[in-house]
């Protein structure tokens, strides 16, 4: 049973599906291997194509070039996007976090300057929050921004270091949290700046991750100048802005991941049917069957939960700890799912994902390794359990 959508919603789904199928076909997606589909240049080209074709900014108001679609249609698009197994979106932090923040806190000229570049994906963004000394405890951040006013203008001079900064090596801009009041501590005295990555004094050093790839980076700021007009909100309002933005990030952000997980489970069942174990298909192993049953339960309930949350949002009621709940459950189930993939592969899992002979182009080994990141990024599982206990159950801090 599926939730019922109105005729208009179904028509929209059809439109989105057709556009996705045709555009992906026109770039030769069907013929591409799983590995080719990961290619950074390809993904970024595709992202710009989406912008140029009017399939970005679905939630944005019309005045900023968006389509002002209701929540259900945004979700439908995300479902279709995931179902089509369309490319990874590298600029997703700009769309998920920055754009809603600018629309709420930004000045008119900031909106005019930055929103079009996000909409078209001509300008890519990275998120500069975490530092060597500030991870889970983000309020400990120490990157300084000194305010200087002289004949050359009113500006901040940023000095310090960010770390784990995803896609910084491809980003034109960085939205960054800095300590603008040197005497402040914790949540006070933090500001939210928009920093041009081409500025003098910015050094990006890619970090090698456990998959062998480099997606995140160290970013060093050595006296980087940021004009005051690139501060979002008031000086010292940075913490509040970042927390509001986190709610956007956690809102509908996981819908596509839930949908992809369904396709991933479907592919996993296929893998179990086709991978021999002791001369018989792995799916005949009762232990593997039972683990598949558990994953089916988890993935179904996750999808149903997302509809349940959507109903809450559509009724205009404030979401509870669903966002933490969803992220936590999703990440832990996905880790289990990819562990099972490795079990099914048996001795074949001993090849690195990058080896040309790796099964399925190395997909399962790579995703399995990547799945270790998802319980850490966007707040660790431990932090989410704290949030659920404190905000969901009202337990003392």
């Amino acid at each position, binding site marked *: *049973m599926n939730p019922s959508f109105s005729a208009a919603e179904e028509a929209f789904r059809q439109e989105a599906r057709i556009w996705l199928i045709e555009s992906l076909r026109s770039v030769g997606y069907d013929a591409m291997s799983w590995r080719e589909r990961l290619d950074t240049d390809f993904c970024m080209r595709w992202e710009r194509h989406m912008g140029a074709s009017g399939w970005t900014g679905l939630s944005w108001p019309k005045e900023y070039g968006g389509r002002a679609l209701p929540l259900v249609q945004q979700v439908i698009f995300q479902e279709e996007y995931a179902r089509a197994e369309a490319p990874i979106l590298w600029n997703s932090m700009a769309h998920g976090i920055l754009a809603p923040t600018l629309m709420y806190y930004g000045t008119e000229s900031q909106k005019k300057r930055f929103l079009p570049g996000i909409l078209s994906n001509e300008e890519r963004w990275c998120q500069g929050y975490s530092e060597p000394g500030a991870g889970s405890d983000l309020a400990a951040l120490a990157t300084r921004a000194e305010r200087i006013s002289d004949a050359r203008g009113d500006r901040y001079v940023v000095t310090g270091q960010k770390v784990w900064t995803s896609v910084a090596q491809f980003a034109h801009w960085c939205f960054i949290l800095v300590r603008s009041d040197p005497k402040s501590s914790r949540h006070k005295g933090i500001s939210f700046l928009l920093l041009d990555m081409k500025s003098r004094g910015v050094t990006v050093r890619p970090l090698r991750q456990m998959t062998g790839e480099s997606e995140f980076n160290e970013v060093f700021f050595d006296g980087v100048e940021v004009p005051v007009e690139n501060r979002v909100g008031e000086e010292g309002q940075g913490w509040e802005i970042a927390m509001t933005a986190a709610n956007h990030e956690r809102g509908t952000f996981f819908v596509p991941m839930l949908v992809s997980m369904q396709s991933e489970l479907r592919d996993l069942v296929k893998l179990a049917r086709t991978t021999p174990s002791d001369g018989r298909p792995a799916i005949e192993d009762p232990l593997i069957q039972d683990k598949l049953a558990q994953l089916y339960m988890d993935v179904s309930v996750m999808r149903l939960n997302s509809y349940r949350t959507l109903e809450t949002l559509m009724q205009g009621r404030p979401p509870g700890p669903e966002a933490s709940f969803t992220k936590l459950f999703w990440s832990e189930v996905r880790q289990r799912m990819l562990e099972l993939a490795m079990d099914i592969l048996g001795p074949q899992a001993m090849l690195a994902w990058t080896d040309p002979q790796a099964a399925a182009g190395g997909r399962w080994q790579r995703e399995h390794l990547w799945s270790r990141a998802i319980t850490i990024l966007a707040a660790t599982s431990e932090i989410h*359990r704290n949030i659920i206990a404190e905000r969901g159950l009202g337990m003392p801090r």
Partner: protein
Amino acid sequence: MNFEPTEEQRLLRESARSALVGLCTMPVLRKGFDDPAKLDAFAQALWASVAELGWTGLVVPEEHGGMGLGATEFAILHEELGRALFTGPYTVTAVLAAGLLQLAGCPASLRARLTDIASGAMRLALLEVQSGERESFFATCGHGGTVSLGTHRVPDAGVATHFLLLATEQVTSSHAGVGRLGMCLVDRSASGVTVESRESFDPTHTMGSVTLRDAPLDPGHFHVTELPAAQIARVLGDMRLARCSEMLGVADRALSETVAYVKERKQFGQPVGSFQAVKHKLADAYIALENSRTAARYAALARDAGAADALLALDVAEAMTSVMGIRVTGDCIQAHGGMGFTWESDMHLYFKRARWLASTGRGVGHARASIASAIVEGRVEF
């Protein structure tokens, strides 16, 4: 699909909750713990009260004096029954028997008893006929006469006015096959029926040993038939769904009482609820509970909509809910420390009811195997 209850469903929940707060209280239940006769007497009085509220006729069609409601409603009511640790054979009578008597081909003489179910005059306890006795039982259900059955452990036997004897089996083996169903109703006071009181694991239910030796069957109160297996599974499934929902209520109450406790109880100068090990345990309990709630709600919606995946959804709900209920109520004991291990605390009552509920069904293994075979046979959609 509507996870949110409708206005009527919300009212049903609210009125059930407030009624039960007055009708089924811990002090009264506790009075029956050392004296099953007292608990049975209380269960009978409670039955009369809930019959007045119309609950015994919840799924009985209106022409038989009931309310004609569906799975979504009995699921909601069962959550509230679970919260209150309701005692008595409600699920067997008002869900299982009421469903069986509405199955296609049920003789009019049997179906007429729906009126007695709705009015509250009939309370049924269940004897499931096991494989060794099944063949002769099916024969008896065909021609009547007398029935004999070896000793069965029967929850709430002491409260029952009648026993529901039930056997089902698969006739053809495929998933979409045919099933056989035999049933009869035996008056508790009929000759040849002996009921012996036993001690119950769950102190909020009584337990009896029931033996039938040449007990005469009333004319028109026995029945054997062959039906599509899915129809039989659906009626039996209603009882499973009701148990899942009851489990949600039990766990929900245990968890909310536990959260209240850990906010109050202080050690090392602070509420124990501020310790992360306690927080994370209860956060996980909350996740398990909410997931089960989603799964059970969907199973009810799918059942009422006649959706193709209704039985699969029920397997998911059952497998999830059983494990959840036992784990959550166990963790609630843990979070109470020594207090949780006392007889005085209510935590063991939730824990025991959760185990009791999990043990009434075919078990988690069965549900998981059924999900696995749906995957293996390609009957699931992703």
